[in-house]
């Protein structure tokens, strides 16, 4: 720093020197004496938050919220409206042992003005299976069908490969019926359900789902999207692509 620099800034120095000096208030000494009488220097601001907590708490909160949504999206991979089911490879070998039935309802009946899907009744399942419906399939609140996406997520918590009876799955997509000797005979389709929109008709006999034969003993695994259904109609096999 040179003397020239100092001289260049001399006007600033003079300007600051012209500022009026403020005086301490008349009760200044009283305030000091009062604090001294209190016995210790006052802690500014009272309760103090440690610096690590002041910076760390908001960060931890952001990470917790972000982590929750990240994990949530991770377990919801795929189209929300696609029923995620697949035929169990061992379906014909061993059906789950029926346990005392109980109701598992993850989505209670609700009525929303934005005409989202409403699942009106709980499904009856065994303990080894988890069935629930969360995400909408149809816009019509009276529509049938549904996703077992939530069931998939819930199932992972208790069972490595959650198994769902084929009957339940077919009911969920809106193909009401019963098993006969040659397969699942559709007795009715729920209006605006996946079954109806995919042109599954009353009288069709569902032979396979995603290429896997369906019998009354079949159970389905909930980690593969439901894509195709083969039905027998008027004596002919017809492949139907499930429409969402």
């Amino acid at each position: 720093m040179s003397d020239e620099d100092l001289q260049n800034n001399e006007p600033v120095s003079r300007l600051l020197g012209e500022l009026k000096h403020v005086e301490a208030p008349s009760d200044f000494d009283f305030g000091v004496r009062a604090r001294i009488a209190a016995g210790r220097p006052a802690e500014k601001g009272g309760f103090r938050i440690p610096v690590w907590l002041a910076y760390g708490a908001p960060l931890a909160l952001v990470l917790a919220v972000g982590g929750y949504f990240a994990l949530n999206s991770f377990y919801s991979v795929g189209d929300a409206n696609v029923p995620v089911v697949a035929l169990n490879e061992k379906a014909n070998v061993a059906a789950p042992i029926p346990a005392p039935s109980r109701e598992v309802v993850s989505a209670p009946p609700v009525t929303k003005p934005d005409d989202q899907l409403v699942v009106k009744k709980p499904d009856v399942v065994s303990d080894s299976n988890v069935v629930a419906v969360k995400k909408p399939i149809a816009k019509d609140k009276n529509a049938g069908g549904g996703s077992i996406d939530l069931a998939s997520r819930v199932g992972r918590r208790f069972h490595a490969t959650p198994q769902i009876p084929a009957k339940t799955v077919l009911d969920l997509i809106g193909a009401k019926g019963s098993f006969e000797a040659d397969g699942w005979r559709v007795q009715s389709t729920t209006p605006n359900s996946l079954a109806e929109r995919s042109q599954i008709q009353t009288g069709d006999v569902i032979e396979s789902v995603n290429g896997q034969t369906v019998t009354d003993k079949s159970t389905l695994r909930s980690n593969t999207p439901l894509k195709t259904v083969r039905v027998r109609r008027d004596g002919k096999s017809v492949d139907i692509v499930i429409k969402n």
Partner: protein
Amino acid sequence: MAHDIDTLSGTEVSRTSMPEEKRSDHALIEATKSGDEAAFGEIMDRYRSPITNYLYRFLNDYEEAVDLAQETFVRVYFAIDRYHTQFAFSTYIYRIATNLAISEIRRRKRRRLMSLTGLFQSEEDTQVEFQPPDTRKLQDTELVEDERSQIIARAIAALPEKYRIPVILRDIEGRSYDEIAEIMQLGLGTTKSRINRGRGLLKEKLQHYL
């Protein structure tokens, strides 16, 4: 007896009429250590306004300045046994006041950071506007300054801390370079450099008034 009374009265008169010798800061501190409360009052008489003015220019907030100035004296009082006379008392008290003011600035920064707007404030912003100017009107009408002075005060308050402290101490408080270096615990060259840099920043902002 009357003579005695007159004599005593004359003695008393001569005592009060003598010009009282001004005690040094160190002497007042020593007296305070030995329990002389009046000595501490004299220290306050000497430094309360300079310290208040210094803090006011630092914070641009009169009430906060008074509060911190009082706290400065409280800390001097409770730490008086730890004061060593190798430093000038003025250096010592200005250093305490500076540390308190810096703590206050950081407390404000933390408070601002915790607010929603503070969370997204960039580093560059914090460097340029290290201390946001306090635009509140002063309560004391005697302290109401004209517009020019207020602009200058805001410009000072917006200086980064490392320039603001030495510039105020030098150009407003009139402390020597050596003393400022002691207060800031810096070398003399660094101190002068910061003062000059601070003045340069002010010159850019106050060009209209120069």
